[in-house]
């Protein structure tokens, strides 16, 4: 049952990646000029022979576009993303350098957002009518209305310029020991910006789910029949977590999008900053690689969420939604 | 016969027949009941009659001619359906006036006056015309729903559980209204319900349905129905004794 279901999800993910790859190929093809100059612009003459050969082989213009796409996809699936037109190094190598930083930022922020929003949302949701309940929705709307980069600027001007206690950019101190403390110091501000601008909405979503759930008939029935409060709350939380998880899944793409800006602001050497750089320098091979790898990241995070959902939602396990 | 349903079957999933060889007819001016427990296929049959879905086998004829795609338009002029859930059958963002105008799109004459005339017959007033469905009570909604269908003066009205979710008091009002309409205009009705008392009260003849099959047909004799099939007996046996009255 579960393997079948996972299989289905993986197939879906692959279809998604397929379309993503098609899109990124299409975008590149829409770029002006023949592929070699479109990809490598003024740097075409410094290309190495193997890459030149690859480009002329894959993108030979006398072949129909769909064949070119197939050839390109085949190369890409094998991990050959071409060479960065700016740095001349293989795109895959560059992407791999950036991946740990993005994953670090993503997992740390996601962790705190989830923990924070579960805590806030539960407290606010369970205590209907309390200060928490009323305050949270206003605060969460307000916090989600702050452009993250603006908050970032404020942070920098306060913590870096005014107090000088946190580094304003980078992933680690240059020439430092690269130790854990150093990493954390650099991580604090970018992570805090993302967390602060997001945790409110997630908390609020959970709060609303809990409130909706608390008004469900079965809660009333349980209360009327003297079921213990803790028991009831556990049940509520479990059900409220289903739409909450769904919401996390839905917002993951935009989450990755938002990270682009924060990464750029804090010069956090992750995939997002890389993408911005690639766009500014019109480094097309890198852009294509970036889109694909972010697509892959999104799809795999969604898969993880799906798995969690599978564990939480019995209706999924029993296939009750298919009807 | 006004409406004849012959040999009609329908299934949604392979091997799972929702309707099996249904034969049924409604004469002019007749009120025919169709009873059966939940899930026995009553609504499905009504949708088939109204050509909202196509039957797998069988023929549905109106006035002796099978209803085809081409004839559908004229068929709808003579035959109308009233859904069980009035809230869902009325466009929530239209006013009652707009809703009542909809079936009259192509008719000539003073449509507004026609509506005003008819409004009284379902005990609604002009004041209701400017409201939206959400501003009406359940009974009022069902009356608007009913009125809209009878505005075009159909010869046959198919009512799918139109009173089941209403209060007894309102139920009674609407049922009496239907009987009155039947008397005055000779409009025939196919009255679908699972409420035995109501059916017993309003119908001249009833069909009893179980698991997609019509198991029995019975005609009212001296205000009573006679049954031979065991299921019908069980069904009517489960009516509460009239007790005390």
């Amino acid at each position, binding site marked *: 049952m579960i393997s079948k279901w996972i299989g289905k999800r993986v197939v879906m993910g692959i279809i998604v990646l397929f379309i993503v790859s098609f899109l990124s190929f299409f975008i590149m093809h829409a770029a002006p000029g023949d592929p070699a100059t479109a990809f490598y612009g003024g740097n075409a003459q410094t290309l190495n022979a193997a890459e030149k050969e690859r480009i002329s082989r894959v993108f030979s213009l006398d072949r129909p576009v769909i064949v070119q796409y197939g050839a390109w996809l085949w190369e890409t699936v094998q991990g050959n993303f071409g060479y960065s037109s700016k740095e001349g190094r293989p795109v895959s190598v560059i992407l791999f350098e950036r991946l740990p930083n993005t994953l670090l930022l993503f997992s740390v922020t996601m962790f705190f957002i989830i923990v924070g929003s579960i805590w806030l949302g539960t407290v606010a949701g369970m205590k209907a009518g309390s200060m928490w309940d009323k305050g949270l929705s206003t605060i969460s709307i307000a916090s989600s209305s702050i452009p993250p980069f603006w908050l970032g600027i404020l942070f920098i001007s306060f913590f870096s310029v005014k107090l000088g206690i946190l580094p304003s950019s980078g992933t680690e101190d240059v020439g430092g020991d690269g130790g854990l403390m150093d990493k954390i110091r650099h991580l604090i501000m970018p992570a805090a910006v993302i967390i602060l601008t997001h945790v409110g909405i997630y908390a609020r979503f959970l709060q609303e789910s809990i409130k909706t759930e608390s008004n469900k008939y079965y809660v009333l029935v349980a209360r009327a029949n003297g079921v*213990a409060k803790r028991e009831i709350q556990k049940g509520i939380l479990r059900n409220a977590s289903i739409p909450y998880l769904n919401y996390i899944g839905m917002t993951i793409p935009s989450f990755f999008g938002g990270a682009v800006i924060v990464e750029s602001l804090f010069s956090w050497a992750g995939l997002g900053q890389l993408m911005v750089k690639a766009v500014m320098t019109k480094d097309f091979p890198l852009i294509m690689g970036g889109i694909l790898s972010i697509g892959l990241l999104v799809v795999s995070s969604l898969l993880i969420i799906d798995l969690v959902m599978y564990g939480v939602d019995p209706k999924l396990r029993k296939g*009750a939604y298919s009807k | 016969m006004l409406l004849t349903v012959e040999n009609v079957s329908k299934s949604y999933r392979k091997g799972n027949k929702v309707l099996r060889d249904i034969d049924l007819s409604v004469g002019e001016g007749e009120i025919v009941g169709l009873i059966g427990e939940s899930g026995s296929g009553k609504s499905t049959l009504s949708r088939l009659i109204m050509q909202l879905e196509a039957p797998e086998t069988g023929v549905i004829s109106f006035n002796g001619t099978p209803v085809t795609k081409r004839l559908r338009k004229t068929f709808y002029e003579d035959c109308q359906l009233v859904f069980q859930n009035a809230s869902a059958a009325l466009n929530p963002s239209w006013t009652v006036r707009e809703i009542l105008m909809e079936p009259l799109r192509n008719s000539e004459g003073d449509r507004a006056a026609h509506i005003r005339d008819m409004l009284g017959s379902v005990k609604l007033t002009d004041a209701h015309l400017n409201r939206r469905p959400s501003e009406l009570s359940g009974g009022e909604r069902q009356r608007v729903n009913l009125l809209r269908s009878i505005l075009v003066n159909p010869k046959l009205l198919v009512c799918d559980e139109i009173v089941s979710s209403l209060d007894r008091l309102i139920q009674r009002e609407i049922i009496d209204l239907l009987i009155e309409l039947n008397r005055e205009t000779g409009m025939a009705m196919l009255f679908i319900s699972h409420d035995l008392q109501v059916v017993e009260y309003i119908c001249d003849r009833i069909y009893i349905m179980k698991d997609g099959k019509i198991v029995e047909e019975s005609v009212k004799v001296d205000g009573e129905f006679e049954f031979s099939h065991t299921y019908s007996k069980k069904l009517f046996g489960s009516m509460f004794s009239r007790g005390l009255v």
Partner: protein
Amino acid sequence: MLNVDRLTIEIDGKCVVEESAFSVRPGKITSIIGESGSGKSMTIAALLTILPLGAKATGHALFNGRNLLDASKKEMDAIRKTHIFTIFQDAANSFNPSVKMERQLYTFSGGRRGDTVQQFRTKMTGLLDELELSVDILKQYPFELSGGMLQRCMIACALYVAPDLLIADEPTSSLDRVLQKEFIELLKRLNEEQGTTILLITHDLDVVVEVAHEMVVMQAGKVVETGSVATIFKQPGHPYTKRLLDSRF
């Protein structure tokens, strides 16, 4: 057993139940009847102190001499847990969809009385058997069962705990006739065999006639008539009651 006097319920300043008074005698089946929105469910909610946010109940509701309306949270929890059991109209939605039936039935029955899961299992199996339900349902989720089955599960719990007072809020409206009849039979049995006091809310006069000993008629938030079923049916005092009786088919 239960004496309600001058019960008034306000929601956001709007009066939904006004100065109502009635009583439930031990060992009897009392029925509240009234049209939709007349305040029947609100009255029950007030008795169980599960009124929605913003609602306020005043007056007296003496349960075995204890006023439920000013009972502390703890006391109320205890009363709800030990003396009263409530069956609600919508059985399909009365269970948490993502918790297995066994767990839920346990919290509704065995858990209330402090039985161990083992004890619960043996006793419940017997009850389910009696109600023509398979034991397998314990391993299933609510959404895998039909409304009728779920309603019978609720009844099983009621039979299990054998409460002093059983409240049933329109328990039959979502059932079809055959099931309705069966359910009413069960209520009768519970009352006759275990002597359970029952407060039955309905809008169906036929049901009242079938099972109730006494009846309370409500209209627009007011109790307009109380008395034994037989007398009221013979001589309805209030014009509204008369209309109700007339509306029967």
